[in-house]
C-alpha cells in the first residue's frame, strides 16, 4: 500500500500512473481539499482531519511509503512518513523544503551558493532591507506560493513597496494568507528546471529543461519549457549544483522539481519542490521524448526499485526534445474560438493540446503558470525546428491570433 497525500494538480497524474501499474494506493486528502476527495472515485480514499487518527489508520495499513502527491501534500507527507518510520526525506530539513527563505538558509549552511534573500512582514522592514541592500532590481514574491503567483520585478523602492502592498495579507495561490513577503536579488540568465527521482538519497536526473520567461507588465511570465536532450558543460555544472541543493535540503526519496537560474556567477537556486512537476503532466509527450515521464519514474522507483537503480548508472540523454507551452492571451476577454489551433496543430513537432479553455468562458490567469489557457506539447528530434514552431506559437499569441475573444463586461 502506498499513501498518496493530496493527489491534486499533477498528483492526479501520479495517482493515475500508480493505478496503471496495478499498485494499491490510498489517496489521503487534507480536509481543506474536500471537493477533490468527493470527486475521487478511487477504491481507497480518506480525509485527514486529525493527525493521531490518520496515523492510527495508516499504521494499520502498513504502507510501503507515504508520498507527497502535490505541493499541498509536502508537509503532511513529511510528518506522516517520519511518524510511521518510513523511508523519506530528512525530517530536520522539512521546513526548509517548503519555505523559500529557510531553503536559502539551508543552502548557505551547507556551503551551496544561494541568491541573496530576506523576508519582511511590514513596510518598515521592507524599507530597512532595501536600504541595507541598496541593489536593484529585486524580486518581490509571496514567501509561500507557486506558479509565479504574486511575483514582481522591482527596479526601485517605490515599485517594491507597491508589489509588497499587493500581496501582503492577501490569499495566495496555495490558499494561504501571505503573512510575510520574500525579497530576493533579481537573478539574470537562463532559468532551468531539473527534475529528479531519488532512492535512498541517490538522485536520478530524469529531465532538464530550459525555460523561456518573458517579463510582461513587470511580471515574469513563463512562455515555454524545452528539454535539453544533451547537456553542455555549463548545464552539467548546473545539474551538479542541483544535486548539492537536494542534499542540502535532505531530499532522499521520490520526486523533486527544482528551478535554478544559470547566472553569470554560476547556478543559483530559485526553488526546490519535493514533488512531481506541475501544473500538467500528460505522460505521452514525455514518453515520446525521454521514454518515461516524471510520474512513471516515481512509480518505477517504488514498485521496481532494482529496475530503477539501473538508471543511476546510465548517462543523461533523450531521443527527442519535448516542449511544453503555457498558452496565453495577449488581452483579457471571453473566449469565442481558438482560431490559432488550426495552425498550432500543423506545426512541426506538434504532439497534443491539454486543457484548452472552454468556449464561452473568460480567459483566466494570463500571467500565471497554471495552464488555465491551455498547454501545448511539441516533440521533435530537431531542436531548431522545435524552437521555430515555438516562435510561431508565441507570435500567434502575441498578435492576438490564437484566441478569438469578446470584450468582457
Amino acid at each position, binding site marked *: 500500500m502506498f499513501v498518496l497525500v493530496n493527489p491534486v494538480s499533477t498528483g492526479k497524474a501520479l495517482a493515475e500512473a500508480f493505478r496503471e501499474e496495478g499498485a494499491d494506493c490510498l489517496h489521503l486528502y487534507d480536509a481543506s481539499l474536500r471537493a477533490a476527495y468527493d470527486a475521487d472515485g478511487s477504491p481507497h480514499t480518506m480525509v485527514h482531519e486529525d493527525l493521531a487518527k490518520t496515523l492510527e489508520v495508516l499504521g494499520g495499513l502498513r504502507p510501503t511509503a507515504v508520498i507527497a502527491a502535490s505541493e499541498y501534500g509536502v508537509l503532511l507527507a513529511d510528518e506522516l512518513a517520519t511518524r510511521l518510520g518510513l523511508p523519506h526525506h530528512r525530517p530536520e530539513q522539512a521546513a526548509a523544503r517548503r519555505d523559500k527563505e529557510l531553503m536559502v538558509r539551508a543552502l548557505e549552511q551547507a556551503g551551496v551558493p544561494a541568491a541573496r534573500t530576506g523576508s519582511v512582514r511590514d513596510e518598515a522592514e521592507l524599507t530597512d532591507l532595501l536600504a541595507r541592500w541598496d541593489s536593484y532590481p529585486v524580486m518581490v514574491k509571496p514567501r509561500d506560493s507557486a506558479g509565479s503567483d504574486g511575483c514582481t520585478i522591482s527596479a526601485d523602492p517605490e515599485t517594491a513597496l507597491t508589489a509588497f502592498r499587493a500581496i501582503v495579507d492577501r490569499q495566495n495561490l496555495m490558499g494561504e494568507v501571505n503573512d510575510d513577503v520574500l525579497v530576493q536579488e533579481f537573478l539574470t540568465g537562463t532559468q532551468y528546471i531539473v527534475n529528479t527521482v531519488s532512492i535512498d538519497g541517490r538522485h536520478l536526473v530524469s529531465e532538464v529543461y530550459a525555460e523561456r520567461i518573458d517579463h510582461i507588465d513587470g511580471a515574469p511570465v513563463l512562455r515555454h519549457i524545452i528539454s535539453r536532450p544533451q547537456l553542455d558543460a555549463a548545464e552539467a555544472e548546473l545539474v551538479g549544483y542541483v544535486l548539492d541543493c537536494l542534499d542540502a535540503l535532505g531530499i532522499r526519496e521520490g520526486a523533486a522539481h527544482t528551478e535554478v537560474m544559470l547566472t553569470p556567477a554560476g547556478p543559483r537556486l530559485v526553488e526546490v519542490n519535493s514533488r512531481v512537476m506541475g501544473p500538467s503532466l500528460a505522460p505521452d509527450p514525455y514518453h515520446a521524448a525521454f521514454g518515461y515521464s516524471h510520474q512513471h519514474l516515481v512509480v518505477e522507483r517504488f514498485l521496481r526499485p532494482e529496475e530503477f537503480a539501473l538508471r543511476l548508472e546510465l548517462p543523461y540523454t533523450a531521443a527527442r526534445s519535448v516542449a511544453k507551452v503555457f498558452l496565453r492571451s495577449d488581452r483579457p476577454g471571453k473566449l469565442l474560438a481558438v482560431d490559432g489551433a488550426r495552425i498550432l496543430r500543423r506545426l512541426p513537432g506538434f504532439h497534443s493540446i491539454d486543457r484548452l479553455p472552454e468556449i464561452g468562458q473568460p480567459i483566466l490567469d494570463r500571467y500565471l503558470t497554471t495552464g488555465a489557457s491551455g498547454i501545448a506539447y511539441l516533440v521533435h528530434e530537431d531542436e531548431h*525546428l522545435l524552437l*521555430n514552431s515555438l516562435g510561431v506559437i508565441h*507570435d500567434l499569441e*502575441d498578435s492576438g491570433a490564437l484566441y478569438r475573444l469578446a470584450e468582457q463586461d
Partner: protein
Amino acid sequence: MDKHAIIVGGGASGVTLFTQLATTPGIGAITVVDPNPIGLGTAFGTTDPLLLCNTSVDVTSIDPTGESDLLRYLAARGWPVHRDHFVPRYLVGQYCRERYLTYRRAAEQAGIRVRHHRARATSVGPDDGGGHTVTLDDGARLTGTDVFLCLGLDQPVVPELVRAHVGHPDLTAAPYPVGQLRRLPARARILVLGSKLAAIDAAIVLGQRGRHVVLSSPSGQLPAVRTRLTRPASSVLDLASWRQLTPDSPDFDREAARLVVSAVARAGSGAALRAQTSGATAPADRLAEELRLAESGQVPWQDAIAEIIDAINDSTAPWPADTRRTVLGRYRHVISRYISSIPVRNARLLLERLTEGTLTVAPRLPEAVTPAESGPGWLVRWADDRTEHIDHIVCAAGYHKPTLRRLPDRTLLLHSDPALAVTGTEPEISPGLRVCDPRTGEPERVWVLGAASHPRAAIVNYLNTAARQATGIATDLLWGAHDAPTPAIRVTDTIRVNDTIKANNTVKATVTATGRLV
C-alpha cells in the same frame, strides 16, 4: 577523388544547393557554414504567421521543375493550399529545414559526410593543394575542393537620414524579427523608412493597438498588387525575339517594352496593360484601384512575370557587368513595383489602415530627423517645412546584397555590407556563376548563388532563381564527375524550353530559354 563541397550560407539558397549536391555523384563530404540553423535564414526564419511570401507556392520551391515541392510538403502536413497561394514565410523556413534534414539523412546513408559548422565565413583563398580554404570568424579554416557562396541578405540598409543615430533606443535598424515591433507602445506614432516589402511587413505588424504608421521612401510609391506569381502553363513571351535584344541597340528600350506589353496582352487574352493597372498618383487611390483590379481577376500581367524574370536573368547573364547595371537601373522602378508586387491580403490590410487613418504614405523622405530636445522620440521635418514628433523610427529599406572583394593575393573577402568592402577589387563572375581567376580569367571552383549571384543575375531575391542556379551547378558537377565537358545544347525543334535531361531517373538538367542547361 571525392569532392569536399563547402556551402557558405545555409539559408534557402544554401539548402536548395545542398539538396542538389547531396544527390550528385562524386561528392564525399559537404560542410555548410552558417552561424544560424540551416534553412532558417533571414527571409524565411521569421516566425510571425502574419508575414507572407510575395511569391506563390508554385515558384517557392527548392526544385524548379515539375509540381511544386513546397506544395507537396504542405499537402503532406494537412494545409489546404493551392499552387497560387502566398503562404506565411515561416512555412517556407520549416520546409527548407525539413528538406535539409531529409536530404542530410539520405546523404549520410549514401556515405557522404555532412557537417554544419556554426560560424560566419569571412574569406575564401586558394589552397596549396589546389582547392580552396574558407576562413571563419571563429578562427577555423576549412579546406574544400569546391566552394559555393550562398550568402544571404542579412545586413539591413540604414538610410543615410538616420545612420548617425544607430543605437538610439527609439530607432530600430531592421524590421526583423518583428516581435520587437510588436512590443512598441500602443498609440505610438511610428515612422517607417521604406515603402516596399519589408516596410509593408512592418506596417502590417505595427498596425495594431492604435499605433499610427507613416511610410516614407524616396519614391513614395507602394508596389503593385497580385493574386499569384506562378509559372505559366504555356509561354506568353516571344522568346525568339527576346533573345535578339542587344543592350547597346538604340531600339532596345522600345523593343523590350513591346515584347513585355505583348506578353502581358497574350496572358490577358488581349487586355491592354493600362486597363490592368491604375494611373492614380496618390498611393492610397492607386492601391485601392489595383486591389479592386486584382480581386476582380483583371491583372493578367501577373501571369507573364515568372517568364519575364527567367528571361531577364538568362538573357542578361552574358552581358558585361556595367551594361547590366546601366540597363537594369533604367527599369529599377518597374522591377520593384511589378516583379516585387504584394499579395492581395497585404494590400487589403494596408488599404484598411489607410482608410481608417492609422497609416499614411509620405510622398518622399523627410528633410531631417533629429532626436527630440526634451523627452523620447524624434522631431521630423518634412519638405513642406512641417515638423512633427515621432515616437519611434523603424528602418525597413531592404537589405544589402552581399559583396565580394578580391585582394592581390587572390583572397576573396566576403562582406554582407558593401560599405565594409573598401579594399580589393570586384572579382569577375563567369556566366556560369563561377568566380574567375584574376590571372588567367579562367573560372575557379568557387560559385555564387542566390543573392550573392547579383553580379551576373538580375533578379536574385526569388527562390526559383536560386533553385534554377543550383540545378545548373549540380549539372556542371555531374558532367565534371564523369570527366566529360559540359555539353553545349542548341535549341532545336526536338529540345525545347523546360525540357529536362534525366540520369538514373533523376532530373539532372533543364533547358532554359537561351538553351543553357540549368
